[in-house]
């Protein structure tokens, strides 16, 4: 099942976008990406969820309400990981997950699902993917020639993100 992934800068400008497809298409036919008409919608779906992300990012435990059990809802749990926001939105069966870095960059992804049912998110895998891409972003940022909020055209970055997608998202 395909994903549309984007890193959104401080002025809601995308600095990196990519589409990932699962390796083994059903019974060998070319893996299918998003249906044609959906491809154009991806950017809009993603940007629609940015407002939710901007609200969630200031909550003490933003990813607590994902059925992680009631006891986690206690107010004073402040040391839990609030970078990964989990599933923040959905759009007709497509799930949207998000992750905010320390420098305010938003990593957002639309998970395409099987045509009828809605998509199941494996939180651990998605979170690991986000964490590794976050590290790649920090390595990009540390280069003195890279200016904040600039698109990341580096093929090295792109090939590594796709490798991570294969490793974590499309087993």
């Amino acid at each position, binding site marked *: 099942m*395909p994903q*549309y*992934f*984007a890193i959104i800068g401080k002025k809601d400008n*995308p*600095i*990196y*976008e*990519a*589409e*990932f497809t699962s*390796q083994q298409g059903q019974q060998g036919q*070319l*893996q299918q*990406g998003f249906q*044609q008409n959906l*491809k*154009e919608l*991806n950017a809009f779906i993603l940007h629609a969820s940015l407002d939710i992300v901007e609200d969630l*990012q*200031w909550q*003490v435990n933003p990813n607590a309400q994902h059925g992680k059990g009631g006891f986690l809802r206690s107010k004073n749990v*402040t040391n839990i*990981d*609030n*970078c*990964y926001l989990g599933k923040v939105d959905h759009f007709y069966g497509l799930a949207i997950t998000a992750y*905010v*870095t*320390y*420098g*305010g960059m938003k990593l957002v992804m639309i998970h395409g699902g099987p045509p009828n049912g809605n998509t199941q998110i494996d939180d651990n895998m998605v979170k*690991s993917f986000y*964490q*590794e891409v*976050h*590290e*790649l*972003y*920090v*390595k*990009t*940022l*540390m*280069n*003195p020639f890279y200016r*904040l909020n600039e*698109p*990341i*055209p580096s*093929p*090295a*970055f*792109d*090939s*590594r993100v*796709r*490798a991570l*997608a*294969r490793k974590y998202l499309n087993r």
Partner: protein
Amino acid sequence: MSQKIILPSTSDDGVYTQSDGYEYTIGPKQSLPNEANAIPTPSRIYSESLIYRKQEVSLSAMAFLFQEMIATIHRASSSAQDFETRLNGYGYGIGTRLVELLNLRNSIPPNYSKSSTFLSNSSSTSVNESHGSSGTGTGTLSSASDHSHHYHENGTESLAAVISNMKPRDLKILDILQFVHGTMWTYLFGCASDDLVKSSERDNEYMIVDNLPVLTQFIPAGRSCDYFTCGIIQGFLDSAEFPCRVSAHSMPQGELDQRTVYLIQFDKHVLERDNLRFGS
């Protein structure tokens, strides 16, 4: 005339070509079928670990570089104000990098950094050593250097893999200031700053005190040269979404005639957010 929909992504040809990276004018590219076995494009910064190697240089070297930077900026600036803004700009970029780097490094489980990459997988490390040295062609291991550069893909360079939970993002003004006062100051100048004080007059003002600024201790009346550190603080806080203005003021106190106070004035909406979200 067949209605051909313009495909937002142009990756419809099945043949795998070496990915030439994201082109923002074109938009997202769909990953290709036979990409699985492609080795990632070799790159220096992505194959090196972000782990803190505790490397040091002499204060003299830093002081000389700093004074030459100051001299260069001074020659190019028209007024004191212009000088301070430019110098702030140099620091700002560093601040924006440190907020990501220091928080990421803080997420690494303590035992990991102690055992460091060399112990946790020593077997593959010995491979690194030999591989590393043959890679540099000189054949001789760089004996003097107590760390060697790993220029190859072997997975040990990714820190995120060992991080189970990222350090939580600081949401409150006090938390982010504690981070600046403690972790960032220790990273930059070797020890925490001498004080972190909330101003009594206005509630959006906080002060970080440094009795002897490391970088400007040799510069007479060096306060305007402290705008480099102001830039680092401002870059750090702006990036973490706590926009503010930072200024340096000389506040001598008895023996400490180079005592400097960094005044941090947060924007109004940061205050509102802080009260709204976490108000008492």
